[in-house]
């Protein structure tokens, strides 16, 4: 099946810094989503982005489907950005089934 690799596994930032999280995948996809899991375990969908670029406030994401990677940008990080960021992809006919990466754990210090 499709493999999803996220990097880096851990990231520590000072408040106000910018960061880039990467997701590589091993096959073509028709579904790619980024999620944030807060310290209490709740996962929130950030982007549905199988290709192209999207922005939402301080967060933006770009997927280059032909090169099989996606990037999540966090600008002017805040302590509330802390948590784990997951990339998940789907590539079957029913693209609802997602395969998750192992996540990037982000810690933003005040």
């Amino acid at each position: 099946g499709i493999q999803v690799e996220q990097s880096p596994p851990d990231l520590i930032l000072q408040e106000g810094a910018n960061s880039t999280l990467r997701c590589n995948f091993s096959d073509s996809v028709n579904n790619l989503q980024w999620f944030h899991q807060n310290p209490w375990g709740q996962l929130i969908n950030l982007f549905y982005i199988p290709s192209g670029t999207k922005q939402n406030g301080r967060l933006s994401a770009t997927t280059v489907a032909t090169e099989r990677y996606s990037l999540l940008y966090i600008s002017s990080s805040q302590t509330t950005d802390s948590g784990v960021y997951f990339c998940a992809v789907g590539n079957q006919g029913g693209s609802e089934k997602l395969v998750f990466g192992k996540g990037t754990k982000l810690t933003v210090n005040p």
Partner: protein
Amino acid sequence: DVKVTQSSRYLVKRTGEKVFLECVQDMDHENMFWYRQDPGLGLRLIYFSYDVKMKEKGDIPEGYSVSREKKERFSLILESASTNQTSMYLCASSLLGQETQYFGPGTRLLVL
């Protein structure tokens, strides 16, 4: 707002017990999913359902079964709980044809 609720935040069971985890969504979503999350492994799909009484195995269905008798409710069943099923269980739902998944708060299950 989409709301996905799970019956318990924390659950402690004994080996061999039958365990039911319930998930309810209030947005008339066709698709519902059960994942488990373990440290260092990310989320892995156990089962999913795309309609009432329909189910498909995910990547790790062994030791689990599911039930979907009503559109809004998707149950995960551990027929005979074992210690290796200690985990965080997450339910999600999505609208047919729209891939965005919405997650519940999770159930932390400890099997002793």
